[in-house]
């Protein structure tokens, strides 16, 4: 998706994403205007809804945590030249893993249950990503299609399990009983209370720290280890990778395992951190938000943190705005999300080409951007 690697970093990672975001917000403003509300007032209401109170900040960070996990999942696959649309299904299955630990071992000591729950979430997410990955690597099945199919299969499987197997007996809604008392990620407000700081309760929990740690680990893994080098090489140029002694098939499978594990960790934040039971359709589209987050964050952990924060704020602000503007609700945020993907992903050449031309003119010809062919994860 990169036209040339020669743009200065502040343009590549700062100016372009901001321009793309502004274009998306501008168009969303037009939509809000069509709906008969003032875009400026809507923006202010959303900002207030996302950051205006202690608990709303908590919710914003809670949603951001989900989006960091799914954004990282998309990014890791991207570096291997793969487009993982299956984050939704992998997150759903990851929640199953975390939930089963919560149901079965909820009475065990916290320091055993929580690592076990995280490991199970990652393992289940990775497991769900393994089949499409293996099929792509060994049988050449298009991973975009198979991961979409696996989203639907995950949805059917989870509905079956929740309706027929895991449902709490004597209850109508398809959800499990509450987890055991120790299978709960400590809430940030409780931790602060222990330090003598009162903070309004919100679902924000220590999974956020896990997400930040995952960002750091992904950064190290992708850019500072031989494994990351192999994955990126295989993603950029599979035939060159073969000459370098790297197996593209193995890189594909391993990158997808990491990607699925990251998506699966959403289950830790959502279920062990907030719901404390397995409920129907808890990922609520976060897997797809991950696509927008990764594209806007330029597939870099630092960028992903920033754009996950933005989307967390949009989701929290979007659910608050309907109190003051009954014509607008969270669906509007989905529109913004789609527009961000349009401008950061599909139409990114629209801004990039003129800016690259501008820089080429400003600098001596020797430093002009070379036309290295675009590398797209379109396998």
């Amino acid at each position, binding site marked *: 998706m990169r036209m040339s690697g020669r743009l200065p970093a502040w343009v590549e990672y700062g100016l372009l994403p901001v321009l793309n975001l502004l274009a998306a917000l501008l168009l969303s403003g037009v*939509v809000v205007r069509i709906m*008969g509300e003032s875009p400026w007032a809507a923006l202010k209401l959303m900002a207030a809804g996302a950051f205006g109170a202690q608990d709303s900040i908590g919710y914003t960070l809670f949603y951001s945590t989900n989006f960091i996990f799914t954004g990282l999942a998309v990014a890791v696959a991207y570096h291997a030249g793969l487009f993982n649309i299956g984050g939704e299904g992998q997150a759903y299955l990851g929640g199953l893993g975390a939930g089963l630990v919560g149901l079965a071992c909820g009475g065990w000591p916290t320091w055993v249950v929580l690592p076990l729950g995280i490991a199970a979430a990652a393992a289940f997410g990775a497991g769900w990503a393994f*089949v499409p990955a293996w099929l792509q690597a060994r049988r050449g*099945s298009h991973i975009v299609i198979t991961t979409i199919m696996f989203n639907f*299969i995950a949805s059917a499987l989870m509905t*079956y399990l929740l309706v027929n197997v895991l449902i709490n007996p004597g209850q109508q809604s398809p959800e499990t009983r509450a987890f055991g008392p120790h299978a709960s990620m400590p809430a940030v407000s409780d931790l602060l209370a222990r330090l003598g700081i009162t903070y309004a309760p919100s679902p924000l929990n220590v999974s956020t720290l896990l997400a930040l740690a995952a960002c750091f680990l992904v950064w190290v893994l992708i850019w500072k280890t031989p494994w990351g080098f192999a994955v990126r090489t295989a993603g950029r140029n599979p035939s060159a990778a073969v000459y370098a002694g790297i197996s593209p098939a193995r890189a594909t499978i391993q990158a997808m395992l990491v990607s699925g594990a990251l998506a699966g960790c959403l289950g830790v934040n959502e279920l062990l951190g907030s719901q404390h039971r397995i409920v129907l359709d808890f990922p609520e589209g976060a897997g797809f938000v991950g696509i927008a987050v990764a594209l806007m964050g330029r597939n870099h952990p630092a960028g992903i943190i920033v754009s996950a924060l933005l989307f967390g704020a949009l989701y929290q602000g979007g659910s608050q705005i309907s109190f003051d503007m009954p*014509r607008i609700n969270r*669906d509007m945020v989905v529109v913004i*999300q789609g527009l961000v993907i349009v401008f950061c992903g599909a139409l990114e*050449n629209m801004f990039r080409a003129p800016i690259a031309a501008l820089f080429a003119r400003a600098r001596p010809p020797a430093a002009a951007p070379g036309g290295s062919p675009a590398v797209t994860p379109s396998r």
Partner: protein
Amino acid sequence: METYTALVLLLAATVRVATPLILAALGGLFSERAGVVDLGLEGKMLGAAFAAASVSAVTGSAWLGLAAGIGTAVFLALLIAIACVTYRGNQVVAAMAINIMVSGLAPSLGLAWFNLGGQTPQLERPGQRFAEIQWPWAKAAEHTRGLGFAYAQIVSGHSVLVYAAALLVPVVSWVVYRTRFGLRLRAVGENPQAVDTAGISVTALRYEASLISGVFCGIAGTYLSIAASAGFVRDMTAGKGYLALAALIFGKWRPYPTLAACLLFAFTDALAARLQGVALPGVGVVPVQFVQALPYVLTVLLLAGFVGEAIAPRAIGTPYSKEK
């Protein structure tokens, strides 16, 4: 006799469920054969469903609704084509962007315009929907047994869009395999360089194919909201666009096998609805979710080469640039 009645009703339901799948899959056939991945079927259908229901609710005319549905889907197809063909963006990303945007935009506009929580008003007046067409003698045959009953249920009693979908299959087959346009279409999906060398515009062909897909998705979406039901509801397509894409792959990008795949998938869907809570002799209650997941599992197995082999158009997913 009871089994026969159940079977006839099941097949009638299959026809109704299959119609939007057939239309969308045929649309996707054009764009995918031209080398453009058509993940946007879902979004185009959803947009058309909303536009058709909105316009029909306001004007009271189902035909104006159809025009609005087609117009909306073609507009969305144009957006995807601009991003993918002109700006050579990633086709998967562009289509997902449209799908996500429409899934938010339709209920947003619905809420703002009709204030019904994102739905459109119920279409109750005559002419607002595509009514079911009764074929000659169908009314009399309905109470007979045997073939008369099947005729009344399966052949007769559908809206005009169902028959349109059935007619479009041979038409598409003829266009793709028997016309100059069809030959060029197939060529541009396999080897765009060769088409370009022959002095034919790759860009124009891919735009045409995308827009045709828009028309088909427009009819499919319209069918969902103002023929099969009486108004638009949130997330109305519910994955039917992806299911149509699966059927297209299952049909190996050819019209008649795609039709067969659509009918098969629709049959499993209708079966799942019928099997809800019914205990089969010897098997017990079959979980509905397993039947629902079947089309997706089958498609994955096919893609994996375990059941036959699905070979996509060779140039699919790669933007074409003359310079290379």
